[in-house]
Every structure is written in structure tokens, then in C-alpha cells.
């Protein structure tokens, strides 16, 4: 017996203080609502998605409407109507309209890129990890090569060889992110394929694809989803960086990263041109990071109890507990 008292095993589960949840989905919602930060993050993300997708339907054509008479209007003033509450650029284009359309572009690049790399990477990774041997070696070497390749160069090549469109940027970003999922899925699946329940399935003559689908996939999924939520952040920043460097979204297209870049030369006279789009990137990224850390805890059965601790008790423990074994007083 050691003196480490781990609240996760031994004491906590047997007390029965929390009744077993009736249905998985319902209890997940309830867990989410208990974490104020995660709830706020989710609400903000949903608002961003709704306003960019819905807003660009309404304001889409306004984003390129030039009106030199209304050029460089400072923000936070309703003198020129609500369209100009965040100001306008030198050509008199409404910042709000451009933010909304730019957000849609950014999301339209980041979401498909994450989904494509998630699907391809996890499928190859689970397959390689399950079969081990040469299939694993080949998959891992390919991942290594992709990782060590300057993605900037790849973006430029695509830009020059093909037409520089949003879909091409999606492809570039998806390819560069595949190794992340491939490695995660391979590691977990390689570990799982040596477990007894997989052996058991094998002795029944279950085919490898069926074993992967039924026994490997459900266990690997939470980890992959966590990685994907975090990676959404990364991909969004990567798209912004490419657009900022002039090798991503091209004008007259709009994206947050491109807007920051375009506003840079007017920094002395119109700071808002760079400030707001960057802020939008930060808010979206912070929210998805918060949500990712919640997903990581919520999908891990050995960590989930943390979310069920009543807020007051958690606060009390936080105040009292120094991590090092403290002097007993």
C-alpha cells in the first residue's frame, strides 16, 4: 500500500454519490453545462459559425461594395449605419461585412481540411497499426517525409501550378496534417491489437476490417476527436499565415489572415483594419482550445470525475492543496 490517495480509484466510484447517467448523450450535455468555461466556448463558437454562414448570405455582396465617400470610417460609431459600426477600409467597404465573409472563408478552409486529414490519417493509421509489419513501416516513413517537408514550399507550388483557390489550400493543409492523425491512430491501434479482446475476436474468425471497425475505432475515436479539435486551431492559424504571406487566399477573396495583411500598411491611420480580424482569429482559436481540453477530460473515463465535482468543493480544494506534500500543520 502506498500513501498516494488517488481519488479516481478506490474511494470515488463506490460511494454512489452520483447516480449513473441514464443516457450517454444526455449526461454529456449535462457535464458540459457544469463547466462554465466550456459552455461559453461552445456558445461563442456556435455564434461565430451561425453569424459567418448566415451573415455572409445577407452581407455577402456588401463585402466588396466600394464607396470611396465612406472610406476609412473609424469604428464604434453608428453615424453611417450599423454596417459601419466596426469601421470601413480605405475603399469604403464595410468591416462587418468583410469580417463575416472572411470568417466564412476561414471556416470553409479549416473545417474541411481538418475533416479530410482526420478521416484519411485515422483510417491509414488504424490499418497500419493493426497489421504492423511492412504496412506500418511504409505508413510511418511516408508520414516522416511529409512532416519534414517545408509546407510553405508545397503551398507555393500548388499556388503556381494550379489555380490558387480555397479548395487547393484545403488540399495542401489536409496533406500536411495527415501525419498527426496517422501517428496517433497507429500508436493506439498497435497497442490495442495486442489486447486480449482483439485476440478473442480473432479466434472467432472476425475479419480485420470488422475488428478495426468494432473494437479499435470506438476506443481510438475520443483521442482522435480531441486532436482534431486542437488541430482546428492550428489549421486556422496556418491558413491565416499563408494568406498573410500572400500565398493563401487571393484578393478579391476575403479571409481573416488576408485582412490582417491588407490592413498592415494602414496601421498608422486605420488600426482597426488589422485589429478586428486578428481578434476574431484569437477568439475562435481560444474557444476551440477550451473546448478541446474539455473534450479530452470528458471522453476519458478516468478523468471524467473531475467534471462531476461540485464547483464549491473544487474551489475549496484548489485553495488548500499545495501539490508538494505539504508540512502537516
Amino acid at each position, binding site marked *: 500500500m502506498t500513501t498516494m490517495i488517488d481519488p479516481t480509484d*478506490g474511494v*470515488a466510484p463506490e460511494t454512489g454519490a452520483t447516480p449513473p447517467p441514464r443516457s450517454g448523450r444526455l449526461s454529456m450535455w449535462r457535464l458540459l453545462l457544469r463547466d462554465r468555461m466550456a459552455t461559453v466556448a461552445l456558445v461563442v463558437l456556435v455564434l461565430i459559425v451561425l453569424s459567418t454562414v448566415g451573415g455572409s448570405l445577407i452581407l455577402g455582396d456588401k463585402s466588396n461594395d466600394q464607396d470611396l465617400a465612406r472610406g476609412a470610417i473609424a469604428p464604434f460609431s453608428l453615424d453611417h449605419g450599423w454596417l459601419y459600426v466596426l469601421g470601413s477600409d480605405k475603399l469604403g467597404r464595410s468591416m462587418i461585412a468583410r469580417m463575416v465573409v472572411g470568417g466564412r472563408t476561414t471556416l470553409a478552409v479549416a473545417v474541411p481540411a481538418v475533416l479530410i486529414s482526420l478521416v484519411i490519417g485515422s483510417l491509414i493509421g488504424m490499418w497500419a497499426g493493426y497489421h504492423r509489419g511492412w504496412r506500418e513501416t511504409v505508413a510511418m516513413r511516408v508520414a516522416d517525409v511529409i512532416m519534414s517537408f517545408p509546407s510553405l514550399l508545397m503551398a507555393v507550388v500548388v499556388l503556381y501550378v494550379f489555380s490558387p483557390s480555397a479548395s487547393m489550400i484545403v488540399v495542401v493543409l489536409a496533406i500536411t496534417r495527415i501525419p498527426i492523425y496517422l501517428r496517433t491512430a497507429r500508436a493506439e491501434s498497435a497497442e490495442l491489437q495486442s489486447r486480449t479482446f482483439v485476440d478473442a475476436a480473432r479466434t472467432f474468425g472476425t475479419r480485420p476490417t470488422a475488428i478495426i471497425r468494432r473494437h479499435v475505432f470506438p476506443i481510438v475515436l475520443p483521442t482522435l476527436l480531441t486532436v482534431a479539435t486542437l488541430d482546428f486551431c492550428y489549421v486556422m492559424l496556418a491558413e491565416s499565415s499563408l494568406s498573410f504571406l500572400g500565398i493563401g487566399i487571393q484578393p478579391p477573396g476575403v479571409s481573416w489572415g488576408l485582412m490582417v495583411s491588407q490592413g498592415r500598411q494602414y496601421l498608422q491611420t486605420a488600426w482597426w483594419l488589422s485589429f478586428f480580424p486578428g481578434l476574431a482569429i484569437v477568439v475562435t482559436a481560444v474557444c476551440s482550445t477550451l473546448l478541446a481540453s474539455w473534450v479530452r477530460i470528458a471522453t476519458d473515463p478516468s478523468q471524467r470525475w473531475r467534471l462531476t465535482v461540485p464547483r464549491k468543493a473544487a474551489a475549496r480544494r484548489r485553495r488548500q492543496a499545495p501539490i508538494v506534500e505539504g508540512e502537516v500543520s
Partner: protein
Amino acid sequence: MTATSLDLDGATRPRGDVALDVENLSVDIRTPFGTVRAVDSVSFTARRGETVALLGESGCGKSLTATSIVGLVDPVVDIADGAIRLDGEDLIGMSPKRRRAAAGPELAIVFQDALTALNPVYTVGTQLAEPFRIHRGLSRKEARAEAIRLMERVGIPEPESRVDSYPHQFSGGMRQRLLIAIAVALSPAVLLADEPTTALDVTVQAQIMKLLRDLREERDMAVVLITHDLALVAEQADRVVVMYAGNVVESGPVDAVFSTPKHPYTKGLLESVPVAAERGADLKSIGGAPPELSAIPSACVYQDRCPLVRDICRTDRPPLREVAEDHAAACHFSEEVSR
């Protein structure tokens, strides 16, 4: 059942001074579902030159008692009540500085798992020298010489060449010797040994216990042995404190407690040990399992597993009371317990 150490010296040796006096020690653990009492009003004493065993199953609170005494408890653990007196001075409420000064020269502990308890990135010489550097302010060179002397004392061959080796280069038994060397470096008044031989082979176990006993004699220490091993208690200890569910259920000299147990739990434990003379007979075991810490009965803690249980056991907690000279048990019907 005879205790070899008692045959050697136990009954005839004059009792030393009381080095450690634990009185009504109560320890709480905070969990997400409320606070539980893991150690409840535990009292015992240990004298210089004597080995006291804390005996009990996993989770009975014996290790928590030990770590509370040396002040190495986790942040979720509170000492709720009681006193721990080391040579008459209460450790609870002592300033951190005074407490650090006592850790080593007055009070030391030998951990169970020597591989994880030794720091993997430092040579054993550095780790053995540390007590001398901290408490005696010796120079690197002097402390190193002390470390070599200590290694020699605990039986590590060629200490001069081994002093610059790393922990992973030693065998399990040698690592345990090193841990003991660190603990006895400054000849503390009280040495706690937390399952010091659990991870070792039986032959190595015997050597380690002999080393501990020799060092106890040589440095006149009080040894508190924390263990679940009845045979070890019988061979090594002078006195035994039997714990169950955070409470002391019986305490006394080892030969008295083991020959005439006065608590049904002690008796159950003793009967569950296979004895060569009774080969062929059914081995008895205690039915059920110890209660969860959050569900310890407020009356007798042993009521759910006790063969003698009656109504009063479910309403009143029996106090620990003297049943013979220096022999106490916490049972309403201790007279009925016999072998």
C-alpha cells in the same frame, strides 16, 4: 508460535526510553464525495532499542499513520486530531524549519520500493552524502567519505568503486540496503520501515531484516515496522499494533497477542496462516472484505465480519481496554476470543 527476537533479547533486555509517542492520532482524506476518516484515534508508543509492528491489511491506515508521523502526506490529507511526540516534543504544530531539522537526525523512514525512492539521475554516493551535507554541513569530500563508510556498514561490497554508480546499476536487495543506509545515516531516534522487504526475494528479505535489527541495536533506535506479514512480525517485532479500518483493534507484546489473541480479527488473521503441523486441515479465512473508508460503521468496526457479533456491537463502539498486562483489545467480548 515463538518470536525469535524475543528469545534472543526481548524479555530480558531492559526497556529503553519512549522515543515515539502517538496519541489519539486521527487523519482525514478529502475526496470529491466528502471527507473520510482513514485513521481514527490511533495510539501507540515505541521505545529505543525496540521494534513495534503496525500490522494490518492493505487500506487499514497503517501506511497513512506512518507517513503522517514523518510528515509526508499528500495535499488531500489532513491531520484532524491527536499528538505525535518525538522524544517528548510534539511534531504536529512544529514549525516547518524545526521539522526539517528533525527529519534525518531524529526521525527517518525506509520506503517500500527502493527503485523509485532513489533518484535515478544522481549517483548513490551523492544521495547517501545528502543527509551529512544538509545537517552536518560537511564538505563534498567529507560527506563522500561518510557515504562510503555507510555503504560498507550496510554490506555493499567494494564501496569505493560503487559509490559513483547509479541506482539502476544495483540489485533490488542492494538498493534496499542503500535506502536503509540513507535512513540510518544520522542515527535517528525513530526509524519507520514501510513494508521494507515486500518487493524482495525471501532470502534477501531475511538479510535485510537482520541488517535492520543489527542497526537498531548498534544505534539504539526505536523501529516502527509497517507490514501485513504475520511471520515477519512474529520474527522481528517486540510489540505489535493490529489495525483494522483505521482503528487499533489490539495491541501488546507479540508473544502475548499471537498466543492469546483478544480480538476476533487478530484471531482470524492468525488462523488464516497455513501451519505445517496442521497439514491437511481446511485453511480458515475471514469472510467478507474490509469496509470502504466512507462506510466504516460508527459502532464496532469489525461487526460485519465478526463471528461473535451481537446487538451491542451494532450500537456501541468497544473502547481499547487492557485485557492483560500491557495487552489491550477493542472488543466487547474479548474474554470469549480464544484459540
